[in-house]
């Protein structure tokens, strides 16, 4: 019985307190309604007589007796019932609306589904990555239904799998030349990283406060540092103020190449094909490979010794 519980007991007491008299037989009840009809006024104030409370719960009734303990979901024995129920529901939806026209994936509205960790919190079960991916596939298929034909139930279901907030609302601002006419470009090569401030001018270059000749002793390095300007014949049209850190001389020179190329693109976007072809804005992502345990260097194995 449930009456031993504090909440239900309190409810029962409440109902006792509210009902001044027990429920009357039906004939009496009908007479009272007639009386109230006759004496009814058209005043707007609330009636003082409170509404009759609901009848008491009959805890001894058959429908209130517990009979069995059963699982909440038909997928109980699978160990992840909520996830499997979601999958089955989505599959049923997909089968139901399979005949609706679809659009290409690129034209479907962009949706931010739950990340795996968020989805695990959502269902409260440790769902593996592979299974979640198969669920997302169904979501994407449902999302491909022609946007003006999507049934309401599909909309509601899909909305339940969206992660909070909208990550696609933030659009990254394209870089431009600032109000003083400076273009800022960053570049990396090997361990070096370079920042270039490029303004229109007469071809003066300062690398870490030094002239180009002081900074780079080799002609090859000087040439590769200013390669972006040289290959576009802009050597005498820009001044560059360069900060470069880390790595060796070659790395620094080629980091400057990339930074300078990117800065030049901000001034003249039309130069992109030329710079691309000349290799001035191509990123060289190669880095020194790490040394591994058991190896002498990154890959070199120790010399084989017979014993």
């Amino acid at each position, binding site marked *: *019985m*449930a009456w*031993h*519980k504090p909440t239900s007991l309190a409810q029962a007491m409440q109902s006792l307190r509210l009902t001044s008299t027990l429920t009357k037989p039906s004939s009496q009840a009908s007479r009272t309604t007639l009386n109230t009809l006759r004496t009814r006024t058209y005043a707007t104030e609330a009636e003082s007589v409170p509404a009759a409370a609901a009848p008491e719960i009959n805890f001894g009734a*058959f*429908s*209130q*007796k*517990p*009979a*069995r*303990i*059963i*699982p*909440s*979901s*038909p*997928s*109980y*024995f*699978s*160990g992840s*019932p909520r996830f*499997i129920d979601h999958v*089955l529901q989505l599959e049923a939806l997909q089968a139901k609306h399979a005949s609706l026209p679809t659009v290409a994936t690129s034209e479907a*509205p*962009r*949706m931010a589904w739950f990340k795996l960790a968020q989805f695990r919190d959502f269902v409260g079960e440790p769902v593996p990555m592979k299974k979640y991916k198969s669920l997302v596939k169904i979501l994407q298929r449902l999302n491909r239904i*022609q946007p*003006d*034909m999507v049934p*309401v139930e599909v*909309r*509601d279901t899909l*909305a339940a799998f*969206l992660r909070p907030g*909208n990550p*696609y609302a933030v*659009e990254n601002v*394209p870089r431009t030349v600032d109000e003083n006419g400076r273009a800022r470009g960053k570049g990396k090569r090997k361990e070096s990283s370079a920042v270039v401030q490029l303004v*229109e001018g007469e071809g003066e270059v300062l690398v870490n406060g030094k002239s180009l000749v002081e900074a780079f002793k080799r002609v090859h390095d000087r*040439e*590769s540092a200013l*390669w972006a300007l040289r*290959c576009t014949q*802009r050597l005498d*049209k820009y001044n560059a103020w360069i900060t470069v850190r880390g790595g060796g001389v070659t790395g620094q020179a080629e980091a400057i*190449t990339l930074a300078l190329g990117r800065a030049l693109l901000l*001034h*003249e*976007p*039309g*130069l992109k094909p*030329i710079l691309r*072809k*000349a*290799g*001035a804005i*191509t990123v*060289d992502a190669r880095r020194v490979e790490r040394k591994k345990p058991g190896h002498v260097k990154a890959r070199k194995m120790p010399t084989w010794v017979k014993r």
Partner: protein
Amino acid sequence: MIIRKLCMRQGRQLLALSRRAPVSSRFQSTLPETPVETLQASIRDEISRPENPLLEMVQAQYEASTPAQQEFTSDEPHRSNFKKLGTTVKSSYDPEDVIRNPPKPSQISLEMLLAAGTHLGHSTSRWNPQNSRYIFGIREGVHIISLDVTAAHLRRAAKVVEEVAARGGLILFAGTRKGQKRAVVKAASLAKGYHIFERWIPGSLTNGEQILGHCETKVVNALDEELPNFKADLADRPSLKPDLVVCLNPLENVVLLHECGLNNVPTIGVIDTDADPTRVTYPIPSNDDSLRATCLIAGILGRAGEAGQVRRLKMAQEGRTSYTPITAQELRLDPFTGMAPGGEGQKK
């Protein structure tokens, strides 16, 4: 890559480059007034993403129905009429039919079983001699299962499922082969049972606390209506065990059948000529490699369970139960010790 000595090395390419010179000369930095139309900017204008898809979706719900939707629905009669044109093919085989509308146990016929291919066993070399009593003969090196035996065992299994359903038992349908998912889910939904169509997690019965402990259960009355008042009593209960397990591929579910044996749970299994019939309580000798055969068997058992559930609910409407219902007192007691919860603490 940095290209040096361009003229010397790539003279030909350079010539080709200079042919497109008008393009590059437009972008001289000495002419900053000329507006430079970049490709990127134009693309950015074209693709305008909706600001918040979620918000848009919610707004779109309030629109009654779009013109495209109206058009699609108005074309529906035309489309259905068009499909009806031409010859009508009668008595054709629709593979979906056995899943959508499975036959009742009373409709079992040898023709139906033969059509589903339940008689096809395995190659004679792979047989399990314990199945010899179910085998009709050998044809082209393959054992043929006797159809009347299959029908008899299937009827018996259907009866078992129906009686368990009528007594409020939990029936688990397990079919973990690749195409059996829909048939298993359909059978479980018909019989108000439970389904497994992926791997059976070993230990779900023997170590249920760990594996099924977090799965939700509920207390229902005889009419299968949930009683939320008893939710708190369910906290420290052991995980539930099925009262009957129907296994469509016993060869792959050895662990499931072993656990059922340990827990005294009766099992129904589709036994092919290479399977061991003693692993299950109620064998159904049949082909277990044909999806059509297993879907048919699952459907028939699902229908049997449906009949049992109807009977049970009908009895419950009259205020009777064919099983001993759990009482509120039992629910309150600790399921492991049989004592009142917190009783020991009060004594101390």
